[in-house]
């Protein structure tokens, strides 16, 4: 598969943007400057990046509570995201949503979602709209391993399958549902095997390989655009951080964490880019500096932004 240098660099930038954004959130949260809670996507960047690289602006995604990466990959601006996480008026949701509900319908982002599996039926519904509008749009539904044990998973995937809806279900299997190992709650090893129940294609892949994700999602998206229906895809990955920031993670073995950190998707992609002479080390370093600056500016934008007026609580209930 031939991918342009521009596209490859875009993907590299996106992965780094997610990583640096999340690292910053971690620090800011630990410093007590972010209200509520945040669930970080560190270690899983290749999935959102590879998948959204296959989409157009008018395609849709639904996200999860670990949703910053999905929003960034679909084109979300880090300054407005950070402002939302800080509860500011300039945030994507004017401070009404926070980390778990960042959304931008203009970018096709139908929201991160605070309920495990909450986006699955919504994604199928967006798929109905895409099918009826006949403009070739598709929906990518990001979901965690834990949500495959929700009733919503069965109802949403089944609906997409019977109507051949243009929806791609991307399971991010990071091995832990909150603090419980997926192997303690699920008897199958490859979660994509559940495709058999719905008579749709399913595939389990290395979710830390951005090019593999891009290639696999690309095929499934093309299939969906042709009206051939949904695909169930499992991306195997690892959640570096806790379920939420501050989670002490006593349930993880150190060796396990270290082994997965060796499989970090970002240096791996960078090595691919440099060894194939697509990008020089100096250029890759420059990208990193550029992204780091962007994230610093995003925090500055958030901190410089006003809070909403308290009375705004009562706005935006009805159109």
């Amino acid at each position, binding site marked *: 598969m031939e991918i342009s240098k521009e596209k490859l660099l875009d993907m590299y930038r996106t992965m780094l943007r997610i990583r640096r954004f999340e690292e910053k959130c971690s620090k800011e949260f630990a410093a007590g400057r972010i209200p509520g809670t945040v669930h970080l996507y560190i270690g899983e960047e290749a999935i959102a990046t590879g998948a959204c690289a296959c989409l157009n602006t008018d395609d*849709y995604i*639904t996200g999860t509570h670990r949703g910053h990466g999905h929003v960034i990959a679909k084109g979300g601006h880090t300054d407005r995201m950070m402002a939302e996480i800080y509860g500011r008026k300039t*945030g*994507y*949701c*004017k*401070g*009404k*949503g926070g980390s778990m*509900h960042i*959304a*931008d*319908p*203009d970018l096709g982002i*139908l*929201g991160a*979602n*605070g*309920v495990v599996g*909450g986006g*699955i*039926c*919504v*994604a*199928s*519904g*967006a*798929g*109905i*709209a*895409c*099918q*009826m*509008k006949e403009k070739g749009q598709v*929906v990518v539904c990001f979901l965690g391993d834990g949500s495959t044990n929700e*009733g*919503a998973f*069965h*109802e*949403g995937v*089944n*609906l997409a399958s*019977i*109507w051949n809806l243009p929806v791609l279900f991307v399971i991010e299997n990071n091995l832990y549902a909150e603090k419980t190992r997926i192997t303690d709650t699920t008897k199958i090893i490859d979660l994509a095997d559940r495709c058999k129940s719905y008579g749709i294609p399913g595939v389990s892949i290395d979710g830390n390989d951005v090019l593999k994700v891009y290639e696999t999602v690309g095929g499934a998206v093309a299939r969906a655009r042709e009206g051939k229906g949904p695909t169930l895809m499992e991306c195997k990955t690892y959640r570096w951080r806790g379920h939420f920031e501050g989670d002490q993670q006593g349930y993880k073995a150190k060796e396990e964490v270290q082994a997965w950190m060796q499989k970090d998707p970002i240096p791996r992609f960078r090595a691919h880019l440099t060894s194939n002479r697509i990008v020089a080390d100096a250029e890759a370093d420059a990208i990193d500096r550029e992204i780091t600056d962007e994230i610093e500016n995003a925090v500055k934008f958030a901190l410089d932004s006003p809070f909403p007026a308290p009375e705004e609580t009562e*706005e*935006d*209930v*009805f*159109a």
Partner: protein
Amino acid sequence: MKELMFSQAENAAFDEEMARDPSVFILGEDIGLYWGGPFGQFRGLIEKYGPRRVRETPISEKAILGGGIGAAAAGMRPCSAMMFVDFLGCAFDEMVNQLQMRYMFGGKIKLPLTILAGIGAGRSTAAQHSKSMLGLLMGVKGLKIVVPSTPYDAKGLLKTSIRDDNPVLFLSHKMLTPIKNKIPDEEYLIPLGKADVKREGKDVTVVATAWMVHVALAAAAKLESEGISVEVVDPRTLVPLDKQTILDSVKKTSRLVVISEEPKTGSSAGQIAAMVAEEGFDYLDAPIRVIGCPDTPVPFSPVLEKYYVPDEARLIKTIKEIV
């Protein structure tokens, strides 16, 4: 002008709105060729508009409601047919966590979704097919609630609900099925948030919804012969609630009974009574009375169910206690 039953009036509203706007579609179980909905309200639509716009689903309430939410978010104007309101229990996440997208997203999205469900006891369908849950549903934020009591109102309100850019829960009481009204041939719409005074009176205001409107009208007819003049106010929509029409009526009569078919604790009647106590206390010459069902699930046996549902006799007795 033609005479239509309740479900025929709803059917006419669906037909007109689907003909008018290609983004309107219905999804739900058994709404197509073989049944057309439990009251025939969808009959003939699949033949006319095809299976892409009258989408027969599996028995998957989360997918019916969540699918409606997603389709609305992506620019369609869906109607999610839940069959009976009790089954919303299977889609409670969609109801209380997903439907609130507009607010959570800071007002950046419209959800033009109509949720259709039957309500009410009276047919011995017991605890899982007979609830009304009006007060409970008033607690769901970002949701308008329509509770028509006549075929005429049902048609005009359903058309408005479908055209509304917000989630609207449209509740059809099963005991209203055989009621007929003359329906004009020309199109009409009824705004949400506008109560209707179903009978004018001067001694006491009875606020009633859905089937209870007919119980109130029957009680009012009987009391007239005893010299008590009853005004019956039908809010028609619980959210938004037309407070002004209710308060104006209480100002005129100085007495209020609120009756609704649901357990009294947490009921819509309790909400309306509290509103009048807060905003219309000075108009009152007697304590507000609230009539509801016992605080139990809905029973099965006709004998028990008759005891459960508020009736004319209870309403008459209550009115006489305060007039």
